[in-house]
């Protein structure tokens, strides 16, 4: 099997789900698939999905790594608020754009390292460890913005959220670029392999000399970094930092995206690409419901319903049902293999 067909087989369930959802929405809302060019910038619902997906897609990249280590990061929604508040404060204080970006990213990484200390050094369960910053984080953000929605007027920074380059909105560059860089970092170095080994069996990996702590730290730090980028996009988009609502519940969407992407919450083998398709599925549902003209009070219910369907279709039970013949053949082969092995 070549590399390409193997990849395709891994991503097939997610791609099919995305295609079906886009297909259904385009039936309900004509013109959904149209893309037009206005003032040298691409417009259309599909482009809108890609732009709106930026925050959750960024969070998904980090969340995938954290989940691969058999952890979870609940704090990233709050980290969005913190980094947004930091960026907004610095912008209104007149700092230059590179300083604002560098400091915000740094704050995100520090938040991730804090989680890393709790999880890797103090051995606190990830769900509890990151819950601490999830709760405290919005408080910190409020302290930074001094309890108000801090608005600013800086067109260069705002461009991170609403600008475009060569016709393509900047947020798309940001999340695709980040995902590419981190994806390459994982697969072109041994980082991804070692993270998977740690997630599957931390003790065995440690006994083989894998520095599990360092890997946990890097996963949470990358998660914090991704949240910081998302925080800047969100803040730039609304030209203000809202400590209470920026990134609210987004960590849950990110977890959902990872799960829809087929990475197990038990850690181990991960695919950033599949998680990103998961994020696009979730954003398509959000945008789709909006353009379909359903009363907004139905949105959350419809979203939950569609996700149940997607997850059911991906469940091992259904997969076995559809691939029944394949499954028996494979297990037959396996039995044969073990017999041979024990002979």
């Amino acid at each position, binding site marked *: 099997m070549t590399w390409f067909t193997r990849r395709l087989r891994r991503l097939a369930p997610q791609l099919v789900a995305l295609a079906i959802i886009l297909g259904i929405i385009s039936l309900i809302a004509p013109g959904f698939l149209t893309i037009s060019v206005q003032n040298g910038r691409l417009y259309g619902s599909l482009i809108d999905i890609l732009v709106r997906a930026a925050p959750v897609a960024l969070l998904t990249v980090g969340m995938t790594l954290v989940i691969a280590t058999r952890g979870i990061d609940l704090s990233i929604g709050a980290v969005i608020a913190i980094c947004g508040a930091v960026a907004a404060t610095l912008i209104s204080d007149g700092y230059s754009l590179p300083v604002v970006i560098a400091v915000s990213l740094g704050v995100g990484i520090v938040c991730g390292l804090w989680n890393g200390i709790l999880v890797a050094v103090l051995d606190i369960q990830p769900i509890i460890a990151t819950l601490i910053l999830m709760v405290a984080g919005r408080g910190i953000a409020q302290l930074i913005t001094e309890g108000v929605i801090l608005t600013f007027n800086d067109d260069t920074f705002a461009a991170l959220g609403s600008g475009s380059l060569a016709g393509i909105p900047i947020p798309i560059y940001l999340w695709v670029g980040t995902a590419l860089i981190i994806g390459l970092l994982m697969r*072109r*170095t*041994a*980082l991804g*392999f*070692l993270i*998977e*080994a740690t997630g*599957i*069996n931390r*003790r*065995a*990996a*440690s*006994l*083989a*000399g*894998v*520095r599990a702590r360092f*890997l946990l730290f890097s996963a949470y730090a990358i998660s914090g970094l991704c949240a910081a980028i998302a925080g800047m996009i969100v803040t730039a988009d609304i030209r203000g930092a809202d400590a209470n609502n920026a990134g609210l519940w987004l960590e849950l969407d990110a977890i959902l995206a990872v799960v829809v992407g087929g990475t197990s919450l038990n850690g*181990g*083998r991960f695919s950033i690409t599949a998680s990103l398709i998961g994020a696009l599925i979730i954003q398509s549902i959000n945008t789709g419901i909006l353009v379909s003209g359903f009363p907004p009070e139905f949105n959350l219910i419809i979203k939950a319903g569609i996700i149940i369907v997607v997850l059911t279709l991906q469940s091992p039970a259904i997969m076995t049902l559809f691939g029944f013949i394949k499954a028996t053949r494979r297990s037959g082969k*396996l039995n044969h*293999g*073990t017999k*041979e*092995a*024990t*002979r």
Partner: protein
Amino acid sequence: MSAPHALLEARGIGKSFFGISALEDVDFTLQQGEIHALLGENGAGKSTLIKILTGVYRRDRGTIYLEGNEVSPDDVAAAQALGIGTVYQEVNLLENLTVAENLFLGRQPRRFGMIDRRTMRERSRTLLERYGLNIDVDALLSSYSVAFRQIIAIARAVDLSGKVLVLDEPTASLDANEVKGLFTVLRQLREDGVGIVIITHFLDQVYEIADRVTVLRNGRLVGSRAISELPRLDLISMMLGRELQHITRDHQAEPETIDDRGAPSIQFQNYGKKGSVAPFDLDIRPGEVVGIAGLLGSGRSETAFLLFGIDRADSGTATIDGQQVSIASPEAAIANRFGFCPEERKTDGIVGDLSVADNIVLALQAQRGWMRPISSAQKRELADSFIKSLDIRPADRERPIKFLSGGNQQKAILARWLVTEPRLLILDEPTRGIDIGAHAEILKMIERLCAEGMSLVVISSELEELTAVAHRVIVLSDRRHVAELSGRQLTTDGIIRAIAGTGETEAA
């Protein structure tokens, strides 16, 4: 007043898991008013047998009689109702409830549909007084020591079941005084006619309390004897599977030329850790195989953990080629070119979901660091060459390692270390639970490796294996290095005597 039937009798019990036999044709007989010790090394089948008797597992073959009637406990509750109660090593009580609540959990005395606390309290008090415990039954269980909790658990089990009491390693976390207290309770229960099965690896305690022992080995019954007619030496031979009189020196011991192998390259001096292994000296020369023998719980694996830095030594020094080094973590050990194949292959060895190839290159990749990845071509080459040279089957490097048999997983873990070209490889029970073919291959490989100049430390409960491959054998007993055998002394006979020797002096 002897009953016509044994209290509990099991005949021809057999059980296999996934086609691997764990218990084969085992008989076990427990009389009323008897304390019966069940002995054997790890993997001998003790806990499988106990779990069958107490209804945790279903047997594949065999019959169980309780007081002469055939019974078939299908689950723990059924076994309890029949009269078979169990107390596990980790006492299965609830710490956040009171003593009385624990004693009567699930069967609280009721009055008008409400729990009758007063009756419960009174009955708890009378119950515990029988065991010489005069404690506040309204206090939380967590406020009492493990020893007290154990007696409370026993009280509950006996009150609930009453005929057979099974104790799994009851003394593992008790100090000498607490053990004495526990034994007083057990003797009283024996007087009352309860049949007690006790699993333990402390031979002194077996001689102190048991009336009879049954020894299992590799899932088979070795024998069942009255303790009064069983000298300690014979018992150890039974456990390790060697009849003393039948031992022939199968190992043409190396002439006493070990010192000619050159100066020791790795030296541990006064190396030890409190509560784990008493300080020991260990010199390892290049190309030498040092065996470590001892019974279960004697500190075999703990020695390996110290050598490989999994446990941090709190005394002594480690020296490599004359340089003092600190081995405070597996990473540090690996940096000094050590390797370690753990006994618990599933939890400590394999990374199940990863492929055979990934598992083979894991240690090397960890050593190189994440920034210098092993290319996939390199990985393929390494994996294929070791799959071929170690004959790992099926020869499919992409298959997740969890689908391989135990022997092939073990070979893959060996390959993981061989890839790193270690100077010292520590093998903890390298042949446990693997089939004969792989067994022989692994022994052959050990010889080949040391011929190439690698040093090995081999821990094994298979004495013949040790005498066959080791140049020297360190004997452990009671977490101490008690003897070192080499040359002509190095026989299975000698090892058994060394293990028993200390035991006897200590008992005296």
